[in-house]
Every structure is written in C-alpha cells, then in structure tokens.
C-alpha cells in the first residue's frame, strides 16, 4: 500500500466519522485541530477506526505528536507490514 493509498483511506475514515466535512479539501499538510471540525475526542475516534482498518496499534503516547494528516499517514506507514 502506498502513502497516497493510506492518505486516501484516512480521508474516507474522516468523512465517515464526520459527514459534515464531506467535500472539504484535506491534504497532507492539513492541521487536524485548526483546519477541521475534529476535536480531541473526534481524533480518538478517527485513530481507533484507522487502527482497526489497518490492524495496527499506534501507542497512545504518540497520538499527541500527530498534528497533520501527513503525520497520521507516517504513523500508519511505519507500522504496516513490509511488502
């Protein structure tokens, strides 16, 4: 799975969790807190859904460091099994 595929999956999860955001442009540089309607609890929901989707676990201590969509993608890529 490529990084672009991962980013696309993140967007899909976000739009599923927050249907009001459907259509909003999200890029790697989108800052989750300031540029989306996702609050800290919403972020927990998104991460949990992504963990289930990719069958990975991102340690909770790392969550605080994930500020942008690209950060989330990096954290997922790092934990995906190598092809």
């Amino acid at each position, binding site marked *: 799975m490529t990084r672009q595929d991962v980013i696309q999956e993140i967007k899909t999860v976000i739009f599923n969790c927050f249907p009001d955001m459907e259509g909003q442009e999200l890029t790697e540089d989108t800052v989750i*807190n*300031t*540029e989306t309607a996702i609050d800290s*609890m919403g972020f*927990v929901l998104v991460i949990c859904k992504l963990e289930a989707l990719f069958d990975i676990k991102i340690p909770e*201590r790392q*969550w*605080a460091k994930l500020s942008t969509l690209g950060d989330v993608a990096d954290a997922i890529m790092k934990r995906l099994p190598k092809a």
Partner: protein
Amino acid sequence: MRFDHFEDMLRHWAETTPDAPALRYGARTVSFSQLFETVQQRAALLRKSHKTCLGLLSDGSLDCVTELFAANIAGMQIVMLDENAPSVLLRQLIQYTDVDLLWGDEDLVEELSPALTQGVENGSGKILFFTSGTTERAKAVILTDHSLCQSAWNGSAKLPLAPEDTLLCLLPLGHVFGFVCGLLWGLSCCACVALGRGARHYIDDCAYYKPTTISVVPLLLGFLMKQKLLNQELKLILVGAGDCPPALLEAAAAMGIRVSFGYGLTETSSGVAISVKGDPYAMEICPDDTITLAEDGEILIEAPTCMMQGYYKRPESTAEVLINGVFHTGDLGRFDEEGKLHITGRKKDILVLSDGTKIFLPEYEAAIAKALGTNEIAVILQNNKPLLIYSGEANEQDLNKALLPLMTELPRGQRLGGIRIIEEPLPRTATGKIKRWELQQKG
C-alpha cells in the same frame, strides 16, 4: 463511609467484605481482600527501597492503582504525572517536585530517570496534583490521602453508591476529579470500580464493563452520547470539571439517566457542590464546605477537611488565593432562592475547556505571539475550543505553519480549534488591554 486514610478504607472493606469486587481492569478482577494484601506487600517493598517521592506516570491500570495505594501506605510523597505529557515538561516537573522514584511505562521511566532527584523530607501522606494549566504556570497542588478521603465522603454524602454499583473510571487519575469521582467515590462506598482501559477504549468500555455510574467531563459525555456508546445499565452520570451545554444534560436525562453536575477545584480536593435532583445546574453545597460570594460575585470556599495544604514550593502563589483559610476561586457564581449555587462565569483570564483542562490566557497568548512574531492576537473560546483572532497580513496557511511546533507540544484539547483573520486592529481598552468580551460577543 468516612475514612481518614486510604489504608483505613482498604483495611475496612477487606475485613468486612473481603470477597466483594474492588477493582476491575479488563479481564482482571480483584476483591478488597486481594487488593489490600497486594498493596501491603508492595508497600513493604517500597519501604525497603528508602525512596521518598514516587512520580506516578499514571496509565490508570490496576497495577498503577495498586502502586499508588502502596506508596501512600509506605509513607511516600506521590506526584501524579501525565504519561502523555512531553518529556521535556515531565523532566521539569520531576525536578520541581523532588521525585526520586518513577513508576510507569518502562521505556519512559528509563528516558526520564536522569532527571530524578534526591527525594524529599516529610512527604508522607502528600499527593501532588497539577493544576490543569499549560507549561510554566503548572503548579503542583499539595493534597493528602486524608483530604481526598474527605472529599470522597463529601460527595458520597450527597450521591451515595451501593455495593452493587459499578463505577466506570474513564478519566485520568492525574486529574483530581477523575481520582476522587472516578476511583475513591466508588471504593469508599464499597462499590466496584472498573478502570478504563485508556483512550483507545472510550468507544467500548461502557459496553464492556456495563457500569451503573460514570464520571465524565463534558467533552467525553458529548462523545459517548453522539456515538451512542452509553450502556443500558447506566443509571447515573456525574459531570464535572467544565462547562456543559444544557442540551447534553437534557439528552442524557431523556434517556432515563440521572445526571448530576459537580463543581470543585484541584485546590479543594475536587467537588464542593453537587446537583442532586431537579435542575442539574443548581448545586447543593457539600456537608464539609462553606461557600460565600464576594461583592463582585467571586466564589469563596471554606473547606477545612478538603482544602489543599498549598502550592508546592510556591508560598506566594498560595498566599494569593488562600487567605485566612478561604480559597478565592476566580469563578463567579450566584445563589438561587433555595440557596443552591449556580456558576456564572470566570473572573480570571482563564478558559475552562470541556475536557476539564484550563488555558491560562496570558501565557498561552504570549507563546502564540512569540511564535507569530506579533502581539496583534487574542484567544477566545468558541464552540468550547480556543479560537485565535489574528490581525495582520499573514494568511491562515502561514499562521498554521508557524504555530505547528507550539501546537504539537500542547495537549490536543488545548490546541487552537480555529483561526480568524481580521483586517481591523484588535479592540483594546485605554490601557492597551484587549477587550476580550467584545471579541467574544462578536463570536
């Protein structure tokens, strides 16, 4: 029941109801007798270590709670640390509070160990909680197992739990509301406390443990309700540590769940007033406490059994707020005709967020101003999130980029929830202070 110390509480239930479940954590359940025995054994080992101050990098687990009680019984000072806080801040806090032993995630303990100190004298019984501020202003509040036990009794006198109840503890134990109302409240009533399995399990802890009671902050309640995560066995929700929209409380009540609202501060070992029936915002004063209002409406609290000893190593800060045994809260309130307390606002430059944390605006705004290189900024609360108002030439993308390192260092709930760029200068008073209320009114 009213207990003087943690040890008295654990011993009492171990002797009178030895087989009753005390704590659950995932598939593990321990009875009061098992808990007391384990705690005593661990306390004996800690005594032999000759360490004096335990920094607890709390993960809310069964082992964490056991360590906490054991260290207290062993006569150690305990410092409640947030394991998710940035390492640089944790190192500062360890040194500030004289920690000489750490408990927590092995890797984190190893990383932080070089910051350990020589320990402390006369720390016995003390438990230090940090005010939910940001960085430099974070102060350690000196509470004791005695004040915390009294606080738990104070709350349970108004809202008793039964031994058949299960209290789900979802909040961090490093937050005094989570500690007292998520843990001690249940144990002091001989109810079973189900320990939440971390933020990852917010989505399934209610279904897993089937609690009858939960204590939550407004943000978490909103999340649980929106995602329809509350279980049908739930009878009582205690909401505290932040402003809660009426719609949320009404929606919970409409589900047949009793909702109570609590008001208190870290400095008073948690709750001093609580709503029991009827209007959830109309709160009765807890039995050990006396609340009066200053001329300007500021809430003043006398809580002889629950009051903090002071801020750790900050006597000047203590003297500013604790005057002749009366705590000046900085909150504004009023009493209704029945003598019940209503919270009406804040006097200090503090934003109280719905996740129970606080932002000290002068410090927060100074950090943002430094990151952006301009003083033409202000922060207000909008939709329970901090909103940056910026007057200047930069665009939102550039502002976000400049603020990213600062925001990443902050707890997620305290990060900016949005940016508004305005063309006109910020409204200021004749003395140059920002007219925050004017910005807030504009929304």
